[in-house]
């Protein structure tokens, strides 16, 4: 457990004690007087026509206060972040097994569940489409009016056909990656409380309160100002709660009954209804010259969208953008298609399409290195971008030497520790490395507004507000540390206000590794005007020139008097009228009009050691080293937490996790058979090394690290397995059966 970054002054995250002791009240822990419990009736069929819905018996059940169907949705009966194509309550058709058909509010959970059983729905089952390939057949029936293609995207440069003809080595492979569950500890839930004036307050976790407000306003036919969203804290999200989940049902039921309504998904309900990471099949053909320089790279992506759009198009665009990663490839052709099926719903997930495409890209490099007998580090160096090169879509980006820095860091670790494990009778050991480049923010052409507010409140606290949510990522520490550093006050002076649309400014979504970035950039814009405002006022109160004063711990200090503040913040605010500074800006974006193109990138390199058991084909990761280049570290514990945790999440993706579907039904619906890593899978030897320096003249500050730790793990593990037993894996999660077959076929067990 090594790292080159250490926490300053033994600082503890603001929400640390309450989380560790279990005292923290999440929004799903809230109860209100007269509160009802809501439940949602979900389709048992992945594809069916709804012939009729009869709620008569359900509404008569004692304890039941409301039973609602699509007829009871006053506004637009659809939601979806990019395209609103998902019914809140289905009218005539269900398209996946989680589709909502009716919802109930009752005095108890049990009464609500019983009422669901009394709702009579007559379905006519329809044939299912359970793979993108099936959906793309010309004769396939259409799941949506516009057909089965949700989104297509492409990028090309140069001439790949000509370039392939000049290649000395060509590798072609199809990579298959699974549907992954976010597996947040707190399932989706919350309470919607009707207010006196017909307004509502929604207490439910989300990654973007203001967007929930907008989507709910359309569904409920209520003006946005009559909807207040309280959305923090959350017990994990990882992209999974960015889209609406239970909010529309609790809101409809609260408005119908005029009573608070709580809905909290059980784990099985969550499993069936939540979005998942997009499964993809990625076919890649890559060719190099004799020295390993990539001349041509052709990529075809097919993504399983599931039933509805949500953020699918943006995820595919991200995969397309990152197809070349941190490498300069003169001839490239990338095309992708995201296809509707009856397989659940795929959507946003930490890494956002980067994990899938980077696995394919880095694996291609490793295969080429083997073919050409070149060192894995060397082939990457030959192709690596330089600091001032353009971005992967040919767009201008903030210059960065991160790619070379992480590769050098990984090379040092690789050379230093290689071959520390020696093979035993039934075990083989291997090492793998990989690197990744990851865009932060939403990209060109997308509304990516950011902002924050700083004020000296009436209690004499320095109040900092963002429209963000704490979802376990450590946002509060980042805010606290930055305010203390930038303003000069102590942490006791700081009050952080987040996650409540009634009181916070719009900061955009807490997604796309943008949180830390937005907080830092906001503070750069806020700090000087704020300081001037306070010092000007303090100067007048103290009859001292502003220049002789500064903001410090506990209040306004005088340069000439170092014993303590001359004016506490509380005293200072008493006659202060104009106490607030606010900023709103667009997240930094490339000047080139290339849709989805990013401007700020972070880089991650990984080295792993694995053990392969020859008797069982099982793979165990023994160590993970991360090298990350994402600018200055704001909160060392939080940084390590994000990188280590992200690494383990991807270890699960690589070795264990698959939300398998059979006939468009989830095979596993709980954690007894959907297995995520537990502590025994986590290598004690997990080290995080941060490269904090930015490129000369970079004025964009720290980049977020919510995702970068998840990206390069998969190809590094896969390469390490190859190093151990010579087997190339192209399908995730790595199958012990496949590994064992390879072991047998190579005669590694003498009795077979």
């Amino acid at each position, binding site marked *: 457990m090594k790292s080159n970054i250490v926490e300053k002054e033994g600082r503890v995250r603001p929400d640390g004690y309450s989380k560790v002791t279990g005292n923290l009240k999440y929004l799903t822990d809230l109860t209100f007087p007269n509160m009802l419990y809501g439940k949602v009736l979900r389709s*048992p069929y992945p594809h069916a026509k709804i012939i009729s819905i009869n709620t008569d018996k359900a509404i008569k059940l004692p304890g039941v206060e409301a039973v609602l169907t699509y007829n009871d949705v006053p506004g637009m009966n659809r939601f979806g972040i990019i395209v609103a194509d998902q019914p809140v309550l289905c009218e005539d058709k269900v398209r996946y097994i989680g589709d909502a058909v009716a919802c109930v509010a009752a005095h108890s959970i049990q009464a609500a569940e019983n009422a669901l059983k*009394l709702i009579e729905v007559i379905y006519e089952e329809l044939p299912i489409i359970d793979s993108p390939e099936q959906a793309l057949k010309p004769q396939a029936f259409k799941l949506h009016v516009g057909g089965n293609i949700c989104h297509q995207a492409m990028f090309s440069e140069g001439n790949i056909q000509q370039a392939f003809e000049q290649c000395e080595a060509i590798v072609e492979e199809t990579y298959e990656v699974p549907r992954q569950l976010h597996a947040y500890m707190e399932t989706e839930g919350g309470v919607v409380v009707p207010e006196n004036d017909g307004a509502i307050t929604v207490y439910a976790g989300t990654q973007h309160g203001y967007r929930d407000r907008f989507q709910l306003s359309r569904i409920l036919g209520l003006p946005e100002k009559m909807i207040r969203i309280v959305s923090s804290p959350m017990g994990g999200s990882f992209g999974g709660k960015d889209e609406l989940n239970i909010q529309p049902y609790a809101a409809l039921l609260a408005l119908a009954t005029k009573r608070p309504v709580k809905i909290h998904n059980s784990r099985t309900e969550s499993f069936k209804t939540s979005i998942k990471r997009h499964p993809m099949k990625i076919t890649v053909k890559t060719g190099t010259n004799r020295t390993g320089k990539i001349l041509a790279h052709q990529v075809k992506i097919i993504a399983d969208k599931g039933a509805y759009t949500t953020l699918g198009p943006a995820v595919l665009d991200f995969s397309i953008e990152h197809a070349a990663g941190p490498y300069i490839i003169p001839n490239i052709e990338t095309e992708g298609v995201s296809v509707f099926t009856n397989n659940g719903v795929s959507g946003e997930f930490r890494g956002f399409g980067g994990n899938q495409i980077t696995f394919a890209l880095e694996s291609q490099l490793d295969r080429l290195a083997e073919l050409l007998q070149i060192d894995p580090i060397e082939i990457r160096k030959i192709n690596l971008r330089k600091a001032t090169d353009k971005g992967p879509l040919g767009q201008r980006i903030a210059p960065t030497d991160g790619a070379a820095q992480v590769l050098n860091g990984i090379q040092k670790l690789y050379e230093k520790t290689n071959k520390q494990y020696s093979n035993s009778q039934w075990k083989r050991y291997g090492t793998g490395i990989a690197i990744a480049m990851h865009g932060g923010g939403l990209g060109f052409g997308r509304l990516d507004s950011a902002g924050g507010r700083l004020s000296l409140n009436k209690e004499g606290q320095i109040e900092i507000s963002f429209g963000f949510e704490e979802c376990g990522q450590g946002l509060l520490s980042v805010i606290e540390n930055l305010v203390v550093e930038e303003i000069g006050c102590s942490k006791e002076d700081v009050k952080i206000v987040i996650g409540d649309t009634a009181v916070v400014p719009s900061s955009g979504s807490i997604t796309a590794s943008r949180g830390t970035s937005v907080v830092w950039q906001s503070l750069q814009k806020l700090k000087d005007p704020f300081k001037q405002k306070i010092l000007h006022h303090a100067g007048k109160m103290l009859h001292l020139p502003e220049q002789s004063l500064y903001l410090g711990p506990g209040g306004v200090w005088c340069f000439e008097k170092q014993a303590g503040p001359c004016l506490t913040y509380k005293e200072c605010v008493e006659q202060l009228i104009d106490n607030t500074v606010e900023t709103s800006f667009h997240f930094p974006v490339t000047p080139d009009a290339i849709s989805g193109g990013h401007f700020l990138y972070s880089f991650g390199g990984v080295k792993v050691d694995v053990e392969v058991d020859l008797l069982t084909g099982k793979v165990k990761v023994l160590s993970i080293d991360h090298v990350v280049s994402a600018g200055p570290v704001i909160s060392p514990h939080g940084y390590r937490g994000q990188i280590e945790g992200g690494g383990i999440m991807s270890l699960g993706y690589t070795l264990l996790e698959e939300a*398998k579907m059979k006939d468009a039904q989830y*095979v596993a619906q709980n954690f007894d058979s959907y*297995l995520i890593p*537990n502590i025994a*899978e986590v290598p004690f030897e997990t080290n995080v090394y941060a490269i904090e320096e930015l490129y000369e003249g970079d004025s964009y500050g720290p980049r977020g690290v919510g995702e970068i730790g998840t990206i390069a793990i998969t190809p590094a593990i896969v390469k390490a397995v190859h190093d151990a037993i010579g087997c190339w894996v192209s399908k995730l999660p790595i199958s012990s*059966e496949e590994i064992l077959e390879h072991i047998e076929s190579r005669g590694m067990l003498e009795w077979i």
Partner: protein
Amino acid sequence: MVYQFDGLEPKTPFIWMPVTVEEAIDLKKQFGIEAEFASGATLLQLQWMNGRKMAQHLISLEQISSLKEVKLKNNVLSIGALTTLGSYQNNSLIKENVILCNALKTIAAPAVRNRGTIGGNVMGGIGDLIPLLLAMEAKLYIQGPNSSIIVDLWDWLQNKQITGNELLVKIELPVEVNEKTCFSFYRKIGRRETFTAAILTVSGKIKWDEKGVLNIVRLAVGGGDNEPKRLEKTEQLLNGKTGEEINWKAVYSSITNEFNAVEDSFISSEYRKKIAANLIVAELKSKLTISSQGEGHIYEI
């Protein structure tokens, strides 16, 4: 079609807490199929979550102290059925039985082991301990409504006609005195390292004479949804042979033929058979090969 209404949620069950085995048996007689015994209720909990109907009467065995006794007498370790899976941490007699401790540690997770019981692991029918107990020649002491029996676990598994009225009181495990001429092993393989159902569990015990000839071979498989089973044909293949005489390829294929492994959406039957055979062969081979190599202490390593 109509999405069928399958009845409203049942009411909370009655929970009975008898203090003697007899009382528990009487309650079971009284309520019949409406009642179910519960020891740690950890497996039941999982099954309830997966849709198993909860019985109207749950007879908790928790208060029956006689079911918690662990004794060692005449080289037989007697383990009360209510001894927890976590007892390897605090019971001195269990602690001494290394292979049993190793097996217990592979079951579920610490919190489950604090409540789950050894008896429940056996009577649940899919427990990881069953293969170990088969290999160790365990006997069960079972109390029925009218009588009690002591029965060899393997005989009981083959002939059992469980009415649900029987109560497992204790498990008797012979303890090996001369450890130099015997070897036993236990391996559980899951999809994850810990806290997971077994893909399979294998266990075995062998003994040999002064010439290195195997005279006792007991091999067992089970775990997860695999039916627990002694591999009797493979045992016969090994019995009476020395390490050098064994045809390991034949042993491998005998195990894969004999083990009727289950298949599910995650793991194929074929894979389970192969790893069962690999693990057993590797365990035996490592021991028998080493045993035959030394000079002077030939069969005592």
